[in-house]
Each structure stands twice: as C-alpha cells, then as structure tokens.
C-alpha cells in the first residue's frame, strides 16, 4: 500500500499534481506538510515522488508521473542543468510544469518558478555579523551546506560577498557539512578550541542548531543573546529548531524561508496552468525570507513555518 503522506489519493474528478521532490530531510518534510495544507485549500490531490538525490531517478520519475496522467508537475530540481532536458520534454508534451525552491539553469524555461533567495539569505547573515561586530575584530566559523546543492553553495557565496570589505569580520574556518549536524558539531568544537575568542557561528540550516548548542555548552558558552560571553548564532530555514532557538534567545537571527507562501504559490500557479489560465504572479518569484530575532519573533511567529505546531 502506498504508505506515507505522498500516496496518490487521486479521486476521479480531482486534479492530480505530481511533485518531483528531493530526498527527505527535516526541511523538505516541512515543505511537504505545507504542500498538503495548500492542496486541501485548492482541493487538488498530490503525488510525491522522491528522487533520493539521484538526478537520473528524478528524470525517470517525472516521465512516470506523465505516463500516469498527472495533469501538472512541480519539480524541485536536483541538478539545475540536468533538469532542463526534462522540462523541455514536458513542454513539448504540453504538460504544465513549474519549479520550486531551486531554479533551473534557464529559469524562463518554466512558466513559473518560486523559490527562496539563498544569495540574499547569505548576505543578510553577513550583514547581521557585520552589525554585531560593529567595527571591532569578530571571528566567525562557517558551516558549508553541501557542495552538490545549489542552495548550499549560493548561501555560502552570499555570506562571503556580504563580508567583503569588512575585514574585521574574519571567517576562521569553513567546514563542509553536507547539511549534517555531526560534522557541524566537530567543526564548531574545533573552532571554539582553536579560537577562544570565537564570536559567531554561521549555520546554513537550522538542523544544525542543536549541534551548535552542544558544542557551546561543552565549553560553558551557551549563553543567551545580550548576556556576557554570548556567541552569536545566525541560521537559515525557520524550522522548529530555529523558531525555538530565537524564542529562547540563543539564536541571534534566523532567516525563515517563507515555506507557506512558497508552497501555496507554487501549487496555485501550477493549477492555474493546468486549468489553462495564465500565471497570476510574475515568474520567477523569489520570496524574501522572514528575518526573526529574539525581539521580533513574537510579532512574526505566525509567519515562521517552524513555529506552527508539529513541525
């Protein structure tokens, strides 16, 4: 039986939208949840296919969806270049296709793309560190998302761009993590070990926040924002860890991806295309992240997807 929330419950009359999705990690599961919420709102049924980080499999799964008669297809590209070919096939087959989160190399090859703006997120993180440093020497350690992920690479690039010209903010170490918390833990441990005056930690994903806590508390530096000895944490995603971290005032800044709108718009426009209507939002749409800090979280809680229960 098609277990898991992804199973196609394609009722006869309902439109079925196929979503070619990426490997399940916490953030993706969050997105999935909001797609299902949106699906209820728009009364369409979804069919998820997970590509297991295998671009080949994604390509053949997309074909499978078509052959199974899904009316519209949303793609979360694993490889922005490779996906082009599949988009071309779908376009020639006149199957409405949109992309989400990761833009294809030529974003105009799809009628609609919605995603976050990893470059901007990275820059925002940089800006926060610059602000905190306030001209004084300020050492930070950077966790690198993953080299095979557009988002990860772009977020890093944003961070580095944002820091150029602010030589007082120094990245003491860049740690490859593959989005995993374990390498993040050792990376931060080592940074704290090497630089007793480490002032900030950049995390490309909230999934690594607990690891940061662990490393900090091991050297008794898990201190709230504003209190002496606090090590700044800036992170991206806005998942439950991020939301909670900001609430507890351990995290200085969390850049919450606007998952609710991202999923809603993506599904809405795809349905529009299926129904032969034009897209009602200019493509590509890059949703700005919701920046929340301990002081602003109360006001914005409703906008941060991770704050809604059951994240």
């Amino acid at each position, binding site marked *: 039986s098609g277990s898991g929330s992804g199973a196609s419950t394609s009722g006869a009359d309902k439109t079925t939208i196929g979503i070619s999705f990426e490997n399940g990690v916490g953030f993706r599961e969050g997105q999935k949840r909001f797609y299902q919420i949106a699906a209820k709102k728009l009364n369409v049924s979804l069919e998820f296919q997970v590509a297991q980080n295998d671009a080949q499999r994604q390509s053949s799964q997309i074909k499978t969806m078509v052959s199974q008669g899904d009316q519209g297809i949303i793609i979360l590209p694993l490889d922005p270049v490779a996906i082009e070919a599949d988009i071309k096939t779908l376009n020639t087959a006149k199957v409405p296709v949109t992309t989400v989160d990761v833009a294809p190399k030529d974003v105009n090859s799809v009628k609609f793309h919605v995603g976050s703006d990893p470059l901007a997120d990275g820059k925002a993180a940089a800006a926060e560190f610059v602000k905190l440093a306030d001209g004084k020497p300020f050492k930070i350690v950077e966790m690198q998302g993953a080299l095979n992920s557009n988002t990860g690479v772009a977020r890093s690039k944003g961070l580095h761009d944002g820091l150029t010209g602010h030589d007082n903010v120094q990245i003491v170490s860049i740690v490859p993590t593959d989005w995993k918390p374990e390498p993040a833990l*050792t990376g931060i441990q080592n940074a704290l070990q090497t630089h007793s005056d480490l002032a900030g930690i950049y995390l490309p994903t909230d999934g690594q926040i*607990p690891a940061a806590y662990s490393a900090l508390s091991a050297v008794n530096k898990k201190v709230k924002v504003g209190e002496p000895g606090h090590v700044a944490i800036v992170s991206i995603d806005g998942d439950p860890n991020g939301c909670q971290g900001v609430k507890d005032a351990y995290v200085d800044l969390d850049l919450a991806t606007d998952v609710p709108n991202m999923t809603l718009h993506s599904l809405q426009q795809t349905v529009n295309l299926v129904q032969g209507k034009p897209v009602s939002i200019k493509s590509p749409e890059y949703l700005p992240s919701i920046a929340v800090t301990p002081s602003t979280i109360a006001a914005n809680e409703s906008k941060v997807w991770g704050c809604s229960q059951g994240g």
Partner: protein
Amino acid sequence: MQRFSSRLSPQIVSVLGVIVIVIVIFSILSPGFLALGNVSNLLLQASSTAIAASGMTLVIMAGWIDLSIGSLMSLAVTIALAAAGVTSAAYGSSSIWTYFIVIGVSIAGGALNGVLIWALKVQPLLVTLGTMTIFSGIALHITSAGNRSASGPIQYLGRAVVFGIPLPVIVAVVVVVVIAFLLRRTPFGRYVTAIGGSERSARETGLPINRLRIVVFAISGLCAGIAGIITVGQVGTMQSTFGVGFEFTVITAVVVGGTSLTGGKGSVIGSALGAILLTLIDNGLNRVNASVYIYDVITGLVLLVAVLTDSVVMGRIRRMNVRIRQAGLERSQKTPST
C-alpha cells in the same frame, strides 16, 4: 625477538608513525594543535568511531564483513526515540529507557546478521548489505525521514565529563581494551582469529563456527549501538542521514589500523589508532581553515601514505622473520636419535 616479530605488529608501528607525522605537520601549521584541550577534543571526536571499529575488528579478523552497522545504529536510536514519544525536531525528550532499547535493538540486529548468514548460507557481505538496506528503510519509515530532537537522558553518555575526561573517551578506552583482550587472550578471540586463518580448518577442527558468528556480529552491533548513543547524544538531534556511510568510516579505520580484510591478521589497538588518525586529519584541516574542496584530497593522500608505510614496515619484519624462522628450524632439527 620472535615475540616482537609476531606480537608487536608492524601495522601498529606504521600507523603510529603516520599519526606522529600528521601531528607534527599540523602542529607547525597551527600552533596549539597539541594543546591539552584539543587533545581531549580529538579523543572525544574519535571515540564513537573507535568503539564501532573495535567491534568491526572482530568481524573482519574472522574474515567476515559487516556493512549494516551504520543503519543499525540509526535504527536503534530511532526506535528508542520513538518509544520515548519524540515525534518532532525540536520538542520531546528521551527517557533513561532509551539506553536499554538502543542496546537491545543493536545486539538483536547484530545477532540477526549472524543467524541470517547461517540460515541463508550466503556470504556476510551480501547478508549485511541486505540488512543494511532494510534497517535504514525501517528507521526512515518510522520518522518518515524527518529530524528528531535528541534531548534529555540520551545526552548523558555523550556529554558527561568525569575527572575532566569526557565520558565517551573513557567508554572508548574500556571497549577497546576489553575487546583487544578478548581477541588476544581468550579462547573466543583465538577461535575468531583461527576462523579468519582458515574456515575449512576451523570446520575440520570442530570449532562452533555458527555460534561464534552470531556472537561476533552481536558484539559488532552492540558497539555500533553504543557509538550511536554517544554520537546522537553529543549532537542533540537525529537527522534522516544519521549513520549513513558510518560503516565505511569504521571499516576504513580498521583497515588503516592494519587489519587485513581477508581476515586472520590485525589488532583492535590498530583500529583505534586508525580512528584517531581519521579524526586528526579532519580536526587539523578545520584548524588550518583548509578549502572545503581539498578536505577529501588530503584525507585520501594520508590514507595512501598510511598503507604505504604499513607495507614497507611489513617487508622489513617479514625479512626478519625469515632469519628468525631459520633459527627456529635449526632448533627443530636437533633431534635426539632414538
């Protein structure tokens, strides 16, 4: 003399050599590399790999292999957290029972490997490849690939510090010493080594191969479980990627430590040193802020050097053995005429 040649194994000498070289290099590049703090840091980071590697050494010494440990440790932790009612990435806490569940599941999983090999009559590689896939499948099925918060008691083992020494390090030392003793000094260990030397002879000698296999794999599973609890406790969260590829890290540590994948030759201490070497490399690269792109290049090259020195040292020892052997033979020829 002869003792030396066969006991103080050359591979240990060589791993130690490489470790020293790596330490020297990094100490030059990054002062304070050998600071007490960083050393305990290193050992802490090496501990879980060392623990799992000790168990794996038993398996490999017998000429078998266990690919399932990574998945098994994630399965054990997943089940334990689920049992404790943790269903989210940020909320919910484990209970003290977590430990019993993890231990239980990992021993059971390991033993299952042993039983399957016996029941299906196929090579361990194939069986553990199968269970590896199944274990991780079940684990992901339970969490539907979501993250799980690992807070509360499950963190004790990973984070406690005793007399200024991180508890995981102490646990690792104990595990390594115990298994090393098992392997070298107990009948059980010698049987395992014997099987690695010649499974046919073991059968003709009447060793209880099947029972031994079950025990060995159970121990390997147990070690993986302990490693799992320590890691997840340290990290404080469990991601769907937890344990993926761990078996490769561990097997690498074992092989770098000089244990031969064909079985019969190797040492637990060597494996522990292998684990330390791997940690050294990462730790050092972190400290000198290497480019993310060259981490793997460096690691790869160091591994090659490690085995190179191994083969060199081996050569010297072997030549020495010949002389020793001849001596032994001379002795064995002096036979009083009947």
